[in-house]
């Protein structure tokens, strides 16, 4: 069993990645990712990890360099946030189409403008359709566990897709939390060496990133889509294996007190912990409230979402990003479309909250429940609401 330690989450993520025998990392600093970048460079500087550390001149080059390195068969890692992620955007679908098992931490932060360095999910949402496996974590322990597991998932021969692990910036990356850090021996046993099937090496020349017109492009897209959908099986296998080894079991969708609940809330990321306290408070008052936490964003866990949500009377979907001029937040739109065909489904409400680091207290979550419970129209509003935003 690993050691129980207290540490800043960003530093712990770098420590965890340091246990994964990476060959190469390329990073460009941005708040609040920078502690991951800095600590990784410390690990290299102190000889604690044997990897090439490329201090690129931009995030565009960070993603380009990890694509090149991953193409050679090197286990490659990067981390970014917000503007950095937006700057990488062009390359994300290329990395997944080339089936390169790159792993990346995203310290989620609001996207400009106006410039803001604090947490929300407006950076990851525009990357949704890039063909990456996308995972959200709630606390430091999950950030460590998911970072290590991401390599095993990405490099699995039936997956071969890049993975991003979303860690709420500041609200999670900069917290000092207690957690259990697996030992080097444990990670060595868990994580096999990466065996690529084609690499950039003269021993067997290959062409990567060819040009494909209408006669092949659609097939390549379909193959990528199928690969991403099929990756769920491997994700579940890897999470189960982890659960057996370390006692921490992960599900694509986690639930809290939903069995008899009339009204459910759905969250993604670190806000789940605060929402959970709100559930306890409401339960103490006799309100049958429950919480659903979406951990796996891509591939979207359609069956699991339906199974846990369809029996509730009311459902509050919370979003930390906006789809400007759209029907609702990105999480809301997906959840609603997942439930659309169900004969029995809850009335769905959408709140957009916590933008640009706006504080969310327990009372904000209880407030959402109270407002939804007070609604007796028995009709679904065809719009969303901003929570805690001045008019």
């Amino acid at each position, binding site marked *: 069993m690993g050691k129980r330690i207290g540490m800043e989450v960003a530093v712990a993520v770098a420590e965890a990645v340091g246990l994964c025998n990476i060959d190469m990392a390329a990073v460009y600093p941005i708040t609040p990712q920078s502690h991951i970048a800095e600590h990784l460079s410390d690990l290299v500087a102190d000889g604690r990890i044997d990897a090439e550390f490329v201090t690129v001149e931009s995030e565009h080059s960070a993603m380009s360099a990890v694509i*090149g390195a991953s193409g*050679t*068969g090197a286990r490659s890692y990067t981390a970014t946030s917000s503007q950095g992620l937006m700057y990488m955007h062009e390359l994300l679908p290329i990395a997944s189409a080339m089936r390169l098992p790159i792993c990346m931490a995203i310290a989620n932060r609001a996207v400009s403008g106006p410039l803001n360095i604090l947490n929300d999910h407006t950076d990851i949402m525009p990357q949704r359709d890039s063909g990456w496996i996308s995972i959200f974590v709630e606390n430091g322990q999950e950030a460590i566990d998911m970072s290590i597991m991401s390599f095993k998932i990405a490099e699995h021969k039936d997956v071969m897709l890049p993975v991003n692990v979303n860690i709420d910036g500041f609200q999670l990356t900069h917290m000092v939390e207690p957690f259990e850090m697996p030992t080097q021996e444990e990670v060595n046993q868990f994580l096999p060496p990466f065996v690529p099937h084609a690499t950039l090496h003269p021993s067997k020349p290959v062409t990567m990133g060819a040009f494909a017109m209408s006669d092949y492009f659609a097939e390549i897209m379909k193959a990528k889509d199928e690969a991403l959908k099929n990756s769920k099986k491997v994700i579940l296998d890897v999470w189960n294996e982890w659960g057996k080894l370390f006692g921490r079991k992960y599900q694509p969708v986690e639930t809290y007190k939903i069995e008899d609940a009339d009204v459910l809330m759905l969250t993604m990321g670190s806000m789940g912990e605060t929402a959970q306290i709100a559930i306890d408070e409401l339960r103490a008052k006799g309100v049958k409230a429950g919480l659903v936490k979406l951990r796996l964003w891509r591939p979207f866990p359609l069956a699991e979402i339906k199974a846990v949500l369809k029996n509730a009377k009311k459902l509050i979907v919370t979003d930390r990003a906006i789809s400007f001029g759209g029907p609702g937040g990105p999480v809301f739109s997906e959840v609603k479309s997942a439930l659309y065909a169900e004969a029995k489904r809850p009335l769905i409400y959408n709140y957009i909250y916590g933008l640009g680091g706006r504080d969310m207290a327990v009372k904000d979550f209880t407030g959402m429940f109270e407002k939804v419970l007070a609604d007796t129209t028995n009709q679904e509003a065809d719009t969303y609401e901003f929570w805690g935003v001045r008019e």
Partner: protein
Amino acid sequence: MNIVENFDLFAPRLINKKELLSPGHRACSGCGEVLAVRLMCKALGENTVIASATGCMEIISSMFPTTAWEVPWIHVAFENAASVASGIEAGLKALRKKGKIDDRYVKVVGMGGDGATMDIGFQALSGAMERGHDMIYVCFDNEAYMNTGIQRSSGTPMGASTTTAPAGKVSMGQKTWKKNMPEIMVAHGIPYVATACPSYPLDFIRKMEKAKSIKGPSYIHCFSMCPTGWRSPSHTAISMGRLAVETGAFPLYEVENGHYHLSSEMPKKFKPIKDYFKPQGRFRHLTADEIEMIQERVNIEYKKLVEKAKYLKI
């Protein structure tokens, strides 16, 4: 004796016979750029990995499911060939050190057109050169964005007509001087910078081989004739490259650790620039005054180069 004069005699013995860029690619007939790429591959040999930018050379060589490449080759995007190459270099270094791949030395090469190099990929290239990766970057400069239809770049010469800087009633076409990219690379303090042109194949190959022998970053700026974009007949590519050198429009030189050396191909006396302009449709609209203005600039630029070669000699 100028070795190029006896090309037929020497070439078969001096040039690697193996084709690493195979025929059957889709370049226009008479393309000088693809000739340059082919010669580059001959100079580099098999132990090479190439990262290519988007552009003519990428499109014509890699139509899925076929490929013209006999060496490992990757294309990712337009502006990042140098960063992809940095990552390849880092990846191969790590894997070799850890014994995960065989121990042979592999040269990593980034390549892109003038647009990919001098405009959109400028930052990525600057970063890669500054970081000192063991790689060669080759700019295949055909003086415009040819792949997308002959739009101007910062490598387009003054007075050339392109589709986004066309000659018109009140315009002479390109109104800016060609960016001096080799000089910017010299300013990075890298060990080796050279200019080359496939009309002088042995000089080009020798420079590529020198770059290959250097452990560290090097930059080759290769003048790449494009009959399609220059609006000249397809059989003129080689002579156009010669004229660019013989008029001083594109001087051949190399810079080793900051020391300049003019290549032996440089003539003692230049032909007038109009001889080079005349066969090309892109310059056809230029007036005598405009040509004179460009001629003056060519003279000054060459003089500066000669001075550097005199005082900063190898």
